[in-house]
């Protein structure tokens, strides 16, 4: 299971990026590990295990979209379809693949560089699990304002992480 512990963070982020809700993303990521275990015989030693896992996960997500009762696990039926088609065409979702520990480290670094009010917002939303509407009422803003502020913050963090990883060799 050590391998699962090492790979899980990156795979969960990857699956989520394909348009699944958080809980469903974890479920599919687990299933991908289970399928990988069951199909171990066809894994080609020396090839990229992470890429193989992501291929399995992509297949499982496409299955989610085909099953009517599972569509509620997507952030949006059409959105997930658009993401899947684009990913299929370009393979660009793999940009979020790779070594999860380095990315997690970069995320921690980037969180530390945020201005105080932005850190407070991330703190409330993710570390205290406060819904945007509640944050909005506390701050006298609208829920849309808060959601969009979080959207911009994630974009800032994404750019920071990308720069951080680019600065590191490999």
């Amino acid at each position: 299971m050590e391998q699962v512990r090492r790979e899980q963070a990156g795979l969960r982020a990857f699956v989520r990026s394909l348009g699944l809700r958080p809980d469903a993303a974890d479920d599919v990521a687990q299933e991908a590990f289970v399928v990988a275990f069951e199909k171990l015989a066809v894994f080609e030693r020396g090839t990229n295990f992470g890429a193989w896992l992501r291929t399995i996960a992509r297949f499982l997500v496409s299955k989610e979209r085909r099953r009517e009762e599972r569509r509620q696990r997507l952030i949006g039926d059409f959105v997930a379809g658009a993401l899947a088609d684009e990913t299929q065409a370009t393979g660009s979702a793999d940009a979020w693949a790779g070594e999860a520990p380095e990315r997690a480290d970069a995320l921690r670094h980037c969180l530390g560089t945020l201005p105080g009010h932005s850190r407070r917002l991330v703190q409330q939303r993710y570390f205290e699990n406060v819904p945007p509407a509640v944050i909005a009422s506390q701050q006298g803003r609208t829920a849309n304002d808060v959601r969009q502020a979080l959207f911009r913050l994630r974009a800032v963090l994404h750019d920071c992480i990308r720069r951080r990883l680019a600065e590191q060799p490999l």
Partner: protein
Amino acid sequence: MNQDPISPELHAALARLVEGEAEPADDTLVATALRADPALCAALRSQLALDALLRQAAEPDAQAFAGAVAARLPAAAAAASQEDAFVQRVGAALASRRALAKMSLWRWLRPLAAATAVVMLTAVGWFRLQTPSVVVEVEGTSPNTGLPIGQRVALRHIQFAQGTARLRLESGVVMDCTAPFEARLENHARLRLVEGRLNVDVGERGFGFTVVMVAGEVVDLGTAFGVEATRDGGASVAVLSGKVEVKQSHQAALSLVEGEGVRFRRQQAPQRLQSVRLEERGGIARLDWSAPAGAALVGDVMDNLTLPGLNRYYAIISGGMRSGATAFADRVPPRWLPDPGEAFPAELKGGDLVQTFHEQRQTPDFRLRLQLLRPAVIYVLHDSRHATPEWLARDFVKTQMRLRSGPWPKSAPITVGLEPLSNGQIYVSYEVWRCEQPAPGALALGSPFTHRRSGLPSMYGLVVKPLEPSSVFKQ
């Protein structure tokens, strides 16, 4: 992304989608924009991936995730050798990449890594100091859950296909989880239960602990309770002590107290839970999910009461009949006891005790139905001061066994005419009637009330034991 900035409407819709709060039109609006702009796809994927990474950073749960994977692997524990092969092969594939990276770059990275570590520790420390992490102590578990027994772990997603686990939160809340179980700990006061059965004892500091299910929420108001959620959206809750509140969308909140339970579904009004199976350990009652459904003797206990607001359940206590067992579901004491100087009847000892409602002793048209899952012997403990009801004389045979219930307070109406013992305590005597049911099925019982004499009888007690094979053969 296209050079044109995205519209405020699209931006708002994207933000809602990532937060899981999309409005009906958002899906189409965003999907159309994504198909027109591949860069927007990349931006949305980054948003979603960042969201996942932030959630993991807030509540690291790699151990639980790995445990959940292990639980889903068919016979994974038994196939340890296969797992070793899996780890070795995967490890070899990854090790080659890492080794290559380390060889060429480590000498350059060392000073940079030291500086990075200082920055990282500062950032991590800042967040950890302010983060109420969901640390769970795994107090006990069967080996097949993948949870590390005796360890404190930061958990978020909990899932196992078989077994049980006892988890203690830092708030003092103790959860006994029974498989198949899947849940997400949102924080130390909130559990999102996807599927599974759970006994919760919130302790003194866990007031307000909430179990969220598809069907609705159960909010503790200082109590112990059992709750079950099924994959198809069904839920049920039974209060063991104290009080809970059941909250559903489009329904007024429903308060339940000790001895009450309901089953409910999303957008459906709660319905009374007629019976629950309990076990008592160390004087503490918990819902009993240890026995497979097929192994139970009494499947259900149902009555014909339709009183508004009635949510009381019949408690079936597996093997619970013994000297000192609580006699009724709606009052403590009295307890079942042998007559003075007598031993507790061996024939009754260890039987499944059905705790009835003493309050229903005066309802003439009262009907009770036992759903028996296996051949059984049913014992009715009838107030010996009162006439035998017709249904009891017809379907049951009177035995030589006798019991008493008590102590009763002097103010209790059923003690009228009874002399207290020398210690001032008052007891009611019961005769024991017996009936064999050689095949599974329903057994109907009536009211203890006969109209034949003044005064109210005690409600009867019920004990059920398996019918021995030899007895079945004799039939």
